[in-house]
């Protein structure tokens, strides 16, 4: 999709990906940096969010630090059964994300549950319901993440 972003919006999007200071008027700090008024920064952030350039603005939580259990899972789903299997997999509320990927292992989903044991039992249910093997790829270690989209 084409979207004509002004140079100012680009700078703002890039800056907004950094951590916002935890102060009473956090946008005033950005306003000073960008030589805008505080209200103008707030208005622009709101417009970028409303227009869908920003998915969300707020705190990002580490779901694991909140006590949940997570596991990346993969299945090799025969093409002719894809929609049927998809319906069965997505019916589980524990399935948080699910992506179709180009590979023999073509369905990749994340299970998010309250405990490790529920990961195993949910995967077992999916195997039973679909007759297909579910491979489990739990996170063993997360490496430093420095991703920024350059607007």
């Amino acid at each position, binding site marked *: 999709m084409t979207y004509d972003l002004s140079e100012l919006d680009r700078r703002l999007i890039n800056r*907004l990906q950094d951590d916002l200071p935890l102060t009473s008027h956090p946008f005033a700090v950005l306003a000073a940096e960008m030589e805008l008024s505080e*209200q103008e920064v707030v208005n622009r952030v709101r417009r970028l969010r409303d227009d869908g350039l920003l998915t*969300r603005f707020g705190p990002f939580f580490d779901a694991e630090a909140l006590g949940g259990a997570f596991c*990346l899972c993969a299945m090799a789903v025969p093409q002719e059964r894809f929609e049927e299997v998809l319906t069965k997999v997505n019916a589980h509320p524990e399935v948080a994300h699910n992506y179709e990927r180009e590979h023999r292992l073509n369905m990749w989903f994340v299970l998010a549950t309250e405990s490790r044991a529920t990961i195993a039992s949910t995967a077992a249910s999916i195997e039973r319901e679909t007759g297909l093997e579910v491979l489990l*790829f739990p996170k063993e*270690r997360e*490496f430093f993440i420095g*991703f920024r989209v350059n607007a």
Partner: protein
Amino acid sequence: MTMDPTDRTLIEATQAGLPLVPAPFAVLAETLGISEAEVIDRLKHLKDRGIIRRIGAAPNHYRLGMTANGMTVWDVDDGLVDALGERVGALPFVSHSYRRPRALPDWPYNLFAMVHGASREEVQAKRADIAALLGEACHGSDILFSKRILKKTGLRLRAKEG
């Protein structure tokens, strides 16, 4: 995990995002019936504990032209995977990178790195950068391009005590 009920309410109130007003924490304070200073203090504490990673924007990759996404996977020497994984995770075009168990014999890969770009060619070029970084420690790799999002629900904290 035990969580303070007020912290939990604060997390629930901010899961969808912060109020976009000049003093967002004051608005939250009013909703929660506590002071603005307490909201800020609690958020700082959640950050110190690693429960909040950062407060900022999630840009929409697709709307900004990053329409190609590939999950690159690598079979890296066990003794070197952590040190090299740190370097892969620090690359500016990698959004997540994890060490995960292999699923032998079909799946020899233990390092996963999501790579984003404006085209598949761009993603492939970035994959080559990772391959160069890993060098001889890497014994095989693959890339799985995203075809379709089949489900996507954000973090949803349940209203009950966890």
